[in-house]
């Protein structure tokens, strides 16, 4: 299978659309692939699928809980990638995991198995610019886009270098801290997006703390899109199932399209 490229996001942005990228945790429930299909049907432009890691340092309580559930169910990177291959998701897929999962599998083996499963992107948050080289080279070869993050703390002179190494889109971290729902958007988000804009033509998607349709719409006043994780995963943890996931993503979609 040729991976479904994250390049589709740029085309969609150029056509005037706002990008909606929901996140959910691979293997967190029996019906996680149904939930994935439901969010795609509800209007996701791409999906981010977590591969659980025992020590998710960048994640808050909701994603941690989802990781624990997935691991307790016996989820493995191999099985999740297999499920993604079978699911034949209709939009680009990026996996999100921690570097030890990639390191243990081996760069080449992981890049090729993602590519073979049709996965077009990878986000590895504990692999910053200085360390990303060996993985990113293999990922590039396999046609897997390595998405890098820019944080509120990233110095202005570093932003262009991070953006130059990023593929698919640039992930703008809305606030300092771990993933999780927040009552308000960080004031940093606008500033981070502006810095990235000055450095690249790649789409800019904002994540970490984007929790509601209203927040998503507000962020997209400046950004090209949003990544929404904890707010969606919480609904699944609470037993909402694919229907609740689809409904929530549908609301996000309406908010982005209505503005």
């Amino acid at each position: 299978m040729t991976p479904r490229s994250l390049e589709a996001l740029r085309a969609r942005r150029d056509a005037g659309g706002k990008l909606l990228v929901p996140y959910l945790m691979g293997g967190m429930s029996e019906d996680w692939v149904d939930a994935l299909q439901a969010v795609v049907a509800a209007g996701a432009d791409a999906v981010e699928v977590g591969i659980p890691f025992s020590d998710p340092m960048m994640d808050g309580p909701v994603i941690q809980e989802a990781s624990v559930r997935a691991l307790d169910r016996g989820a493995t990177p191999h099985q999740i990638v297999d499920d993604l291959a079978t699911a034949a998701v209709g939009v680009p897929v990026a996996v999100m995991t921690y570097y030890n999962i990639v390191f243990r599998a081996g760069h080449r083996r992981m890049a090729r198995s993602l590519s073979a499963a049709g996965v077009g992107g990878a986000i590895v948050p504990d692999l910053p610019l200085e360390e990303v080289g060996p993985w990113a080279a293999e990922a590039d070869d396999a046609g897997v886009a390595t998405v890098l993050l820019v944080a509120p703390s990233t110095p202005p002179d570093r932003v262009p270098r991070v953006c130059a190494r990023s593929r698919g889109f640039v992930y703008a971290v809305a606030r300092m801290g771990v993933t999780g729902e927040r009552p308000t958007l960080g004031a940093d988000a606008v500033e981070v997006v502006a810095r990235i804009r000055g450095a690249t033509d790649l789409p800019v998607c904002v994540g970490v703390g984007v929790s509601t349709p209203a927040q998503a719409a507000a962020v997209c006043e400046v950004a090209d899109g949003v990544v929404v994780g904890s707010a969606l995963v919480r609904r699944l943890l609470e037993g909402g199932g694919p229907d609740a996931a689809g409904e929530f993503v549908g609301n996000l979609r309406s908010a982005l399209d209505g503005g």
Partner: protein
Amino acid sequence: MTTVPVPMGRPGPDGRFGDFGGRFVPESLVPACMELEQAFAEAWADPAYRNRLDAILRDYGGRPTPVTECFRLSERLGARVLLKREDLVHAGSHKLNNVIGQALLAERMGKRRMVAETGAGQHGVATATAAALLGLECTVYMGETDIERQALNVFRMELLGAEVRPVRSGSRTLKDAVNEALRDWVATVDSTHYCLGSVMGPHPFPYMVRQLQRVVGDEAREQCRALLGGHDPDVVVACVGGGSNAAGTFAGFSETTARLVGVEAAGGAAVTDGIPGVLHGMCSLLLQDEAGQILEAESISAGLDYPGVGPEHAHLAAIGRAEYDRATDEEVLAAFRLMAETEGILPALEPAHAVAWLVREAGRSVPSGATVLVTLSGRGDKDVAQVRDLLAGGTA
């Protein structure tokens, strides 16, 4: 791949000791690690910083600590046993050497709050102590399992003005406390210094903490030479969890011909049983499964209950400059009692691993008549209640 030219020199510019080390942190923390690297380099080269550090460790911490010759234990084991007495440092362990250095650095960087992880509580107590001394705020993350087995240390930290936050994720021990401290640091990095307790984590921590702990080895080397007519000990032994007291001790002897031995807990022997991986910002040897999920270490010693090891130890093992072995819980309890009965010293359960190794190896890989320096990294008062329960339970 950059390599270290001499054992225990500077890491390469990418923070590598051979193949190990590095800086595997989220982008949000990269600038803070870079700032810390530069601040430490400047401070370490600044006589004003060094003088103040030395003065506090001397006048407040009680340095230099003595090297004690163990006459009765030596007779029992048939080897000449010397102890580097870090149990006599203020607050009860070698941890103070590191935290005073980092607290002064936090002050220099204008950060008024420190977060720390702790396993046995020794590093938490030391950090709380340094924070009280310098008037800094202090938050300590501690696994719920460790809070139960180290209740007195929790109360000590609170008396010293620190807030102890229980960690309920994962194995609820040291590994999870590190995760939680890192999560706090990501959100508070402008105002907060992460006072990491061992020679682990992202660059520059493994190097910085080793430099702050090398006072143990540098002092011990001079003291041994005075005792041994200008000679070095044949064997130098220290316990290894993350590995800070061992790194500090080995740093003083890496250029001698002494045999360097790190002793891990049998249930958390990352050097012996681990394979390369990346956790807590570093590439090192880790206990993990075939998918890369980190396994839980298990030991009676909360301070050694860690599934990884500092990257420089992984490197020293790879190049053969140091060797690593393990001690079982049973051997450790027996060594704890032997040290108490023959020398009148209650060691912490962590350095009791080093003693246990020596008890086992004396007459075997440690030949009769050899001179052995053991770093006694902390005192055992914190462990007395636990040892009582273990002995009553018939574990030993």
